[in-house]
């Protein structure tokens, strides 16, 4: 049976849709919407977007000390003299550094693991920036290692693994308090969160 040919996008548009479709959380419909939005943009804005992608790929590197993403090596946080080099906070992802920096209550340094031990997904310690962390602690002036992995099963497993790895070193290992979120409701809190909130209670 013959019919009308199925209309398809121009090859250049189809390629853009295909590339956008590879991004996390972008399905084919969203990719089409984004592609047609880009087509409608003024040329200078579209070129700025393309340039931003090119520059970020060319210039962003891992800081050799904290493994965070940066334009310079060492990164601005590692070279800031006002920060306390005796404290290192271990986080899963670069975005976690931004979240902690927004609190303005931590003035130490960071170490970014770029993931978390996830046996189910085949991610082991060798896939993380753990070797770099151990070599950084060995012989350095670090006195406290603050583990700020997410309070998930995998985050906790990573924290326990790090604790075991640095057990021989003269470093105090702590991790962020677990408990009730601000604005939370006791009635809806799960037993694990509540029991940890009790364990971590503080004198008023």
């Amino acid at each position, binding site marked *: 049976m013959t019919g009308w040919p199925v209309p398809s996008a121009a090859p250049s548009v189809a390629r853009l849709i295909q590339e956008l479709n590879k991004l996390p959380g972008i399905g084919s419909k969203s990719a089409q919407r984004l592609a047609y939005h880009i087509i409608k943009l003024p040329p200078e804005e579209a070129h700025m977007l393309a340039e931003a992608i090119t520059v970020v790929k060319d210039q962003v590197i891992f800081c050799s000390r904290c493994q965070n993403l940066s334009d310079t090596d060492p990164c601005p946080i590692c070279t800031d003299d006002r920060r306390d080099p005796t404290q290192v906070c271990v986080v899963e992802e670069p975005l976690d550094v931004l979240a902690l920096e927004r609190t303005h209550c931590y003035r130490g340094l960071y170490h970014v693991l770029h993931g978390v031990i996830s046996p189910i997904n085949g991610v082991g310690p060798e896939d993380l920036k753990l070797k770099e962390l151990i070599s950084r602690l060995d012989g350095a002036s670090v006195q406290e290692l603050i583990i700020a992995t997410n309070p998930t099963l995998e985050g906790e497993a990573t924290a326990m*693994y790090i604790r075991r790895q640095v057990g021989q070193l003269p470093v105090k290992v702590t991790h962020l308090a677990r408990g009730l979120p601000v604005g939370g409701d006791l009635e809806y809190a799960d037993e*694990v969160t509540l029991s940890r909130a009790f364990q971590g209670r503080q004198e008023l």
Partner: protein
Amino acid sequence: MSRPRSFRTEGVVIRSAPMMEAGLMVTLFTREWGKLRAVVHGARKPSSKLVGHLEVLNCVDLTLHRAHPGNLDIVSQAQIVEAFPALRMELEGATGGMYMTEVVDGFGAEGSPNQEMYQLLVGCLRALDGGAPRDHVLRYFEMQVLDHSGFMPELQLCVECREVLQPGEHLYSPEAGGTLCPLCGMKGQQVYQMSVNALKALRYFRQSSLEQACSLKLEPQLTRELTTLLSGTLKYWLDREIRSRTFLERLA
């Protein structure tokens, strides 16, 4: 039987992954409906009332609904039934739990209830949480999963000549479906050596309760042999490695 649009069930969270801006996609192994995937909207926001209940390995009482037929179920209520807290506080226990959920994820089919496997998973998580020996629990779990999935290897007869196995050393082939007598094992199949103690231990794990299995004396060499035989069998039927095994072995 298809699931109703709104239903309540009990299940173990066996997997979770971020979804969209702040959502979570959870894979559950439920008592009544087997494996199913469901969406938890807004779960990753700090204000979420559900995320703590839906942590991997939790056994949860759930209410789910579906807006349209064919869509994924949406979790509307969740309440922890058992959280296995001691299991989470220890690296070996947590990894053992993750290993079991990966095996159940592999053998459990979506929309196919398997109450025996559900009870097995909860029972084994409870045993690990209570401090039962990890190797015993995991080998028993593997053996019983094969049984409840219909892949139990033959351990009484030679799978080739159908003769009753005589006391002594034997051979084992997941591909052939179980134990081979020494003569039949020479016919070019890829086989594992199987000691008489390994054969006895596998038969015991098949017939006994978890409590009885945990009281069995296992020498390190026998534990290694059972691990090799059972992991080879799981790999054959799943057609892939159990990824968490690598990390589990590293901790041993």
